[in-house]
């Protein structure tokens, strides 16, 4: 039987996604075997900083009775001595039953899957893919409404934001309509937009969130990174016009949900946290049952 890897949301069809989300929902209802992965070891190779993804994978493994090996900081591992990722993966394959990897280079997880003898899960590769985040984003949407045919607005850095890319690709399977609002230079990459349109997705660009706030079902906010701008003043100038506030949400549909892959900086006013629209902390929590379902899929 071939080794099962989870590298890109593009490798999933709609049935695969629905089945995995159904499984996560069962796990959420505590219908799972707490020893399902007893004796199994997950290697966590995080070559970039991570809090939520890393901790939720660790939590998911612990809740299923398994354990986690970590390399610690990048500076402390052999990669700092010039070892190739291919060699690291071959070595770690001998220590663990599965590998979860985050790496700054696009395609790193695909390369890891080529050299690994155990399943590999991509936890983010550069500006590329982040399938576990996409699955938990979809899971969070599904908790509030059927995913089919939703109107979703993506706000912020849509050029480098891998979570937005992966989610948009997945939503093309659900006939969603995509509204984009992003600063100049941080728009959705043209080749991705073209791909999505070929799959039948309608994409509408807007200059102002207020133009769409009353029509969308989901507001997906991403962080605009300061380093993309020449100076702090131009960053604050742009960031302030993409900020989600209670005043903005006053015109929203009652069932609108606000999602954010976190960490947030200034994109969402903390006053929104108490609003019934805010779901970003639920979304973060949902990382655990979704990643439990993913681990069970590759390890059982």
């Amino acid at each position: 039987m071939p080794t099962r890897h989870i590298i890109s949301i593009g490798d999933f069809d709609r049935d695969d996604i629905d089945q995995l989300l159904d499984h996560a929902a069962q796990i959420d209802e505590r219908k799972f075997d707490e020893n399902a992965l007893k004796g199994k070891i997950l290697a966590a190779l995080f070559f970039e900083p991570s809090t939520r993804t890393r901790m939720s994978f660790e939590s998911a493994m612990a809740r299923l009775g398994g354990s986690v090996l970590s390399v610690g900081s990048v500076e402390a591992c052999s990669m700092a001595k010039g070892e190739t990722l291919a060699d690291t993966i071959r070595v770690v394959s001998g220590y663990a039953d599965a590998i979860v990897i985050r790496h700054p280079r696009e395609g790193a997880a695909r390369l890891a899957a080529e050299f690994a003898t155990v399943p590999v899960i991509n936890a983010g590769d550069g500006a590329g893919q982040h399938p576990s985040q996409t699955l938990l984003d979809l899971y969070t949407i599904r908790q509030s409404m059927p995913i089919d045919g939703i109107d979703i607005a993506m706000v912020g850095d849509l050029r480098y934001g891998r979570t937005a890319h992966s989610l948009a690709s997945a939503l093309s399977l659900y006939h969603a309509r995509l509204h984009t609002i992003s600063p100049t230079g941080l728009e959705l990459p043209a080749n991705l937009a073209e791909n999505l349109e070929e799959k039948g997705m309608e994409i509408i660009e807007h200059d102002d969130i207020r133009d769409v706030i009353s029509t969308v079902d989901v507001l997906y906010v991403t962080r605009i990174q300061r380093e993309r701008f020449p100076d702090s003043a131009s960053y604050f100038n742009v960031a302030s016009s993409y900020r989600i506030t209670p005043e903005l949400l006053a015109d929203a549909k009652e069932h609108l949900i606000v999602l954010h892959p976190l960490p947030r900086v200034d994109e969402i006013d903390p006053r929104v946290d108490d609003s019934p629209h805010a779901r970003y902390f639920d979304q973060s929590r949902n990382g655990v049952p979704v990643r439990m379902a993913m681990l069970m899929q590759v390890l059982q």
Partner: protein
Amino acid sequence: MTPAASEENEGLLVRRIKNGTVIDHIDAGEALNVVKILGITGTTQEALSIATNVPSRNMGRKDIVKLSNRELSKEEVDRIALISPRATINIIRNFKVCEKKGVEIPTLIEGVVRCPNPGCISNTHEPIRTKFRVQPKGLHCCYCDWVINRDITGHII
């Protein structure tokens, strides 16, 4: 110039080979790229003849590459279909054409073009060859999903 005269000129420019491979009907100006794609520059000890802008009845102008004492496999030459889909391959044995075939665009090409995405893992010192799926809209990087849809020759390794 009559066809016969053009053939004569071609004969003067590029000698017949006894054994080896002749790649004919290469789009004019692409011969050097063909040689580059085949990876035979600097590595072969055999005689390599290149003729460019040779008059052609069907193509107006064409390029020809002749490689002595080496029969290129179909897999090797199919890669040139990316830049010259009308090319034909002639396998020569004792001055006679023993096999003649066209080129077919392969579904996967490895180690031929470089990914233009500077962030792609294939642009590092990892022990891998670049890998692209050939799709109607261009070459799709199997690692980072980048698509090369123009100037393929500019990305040849």
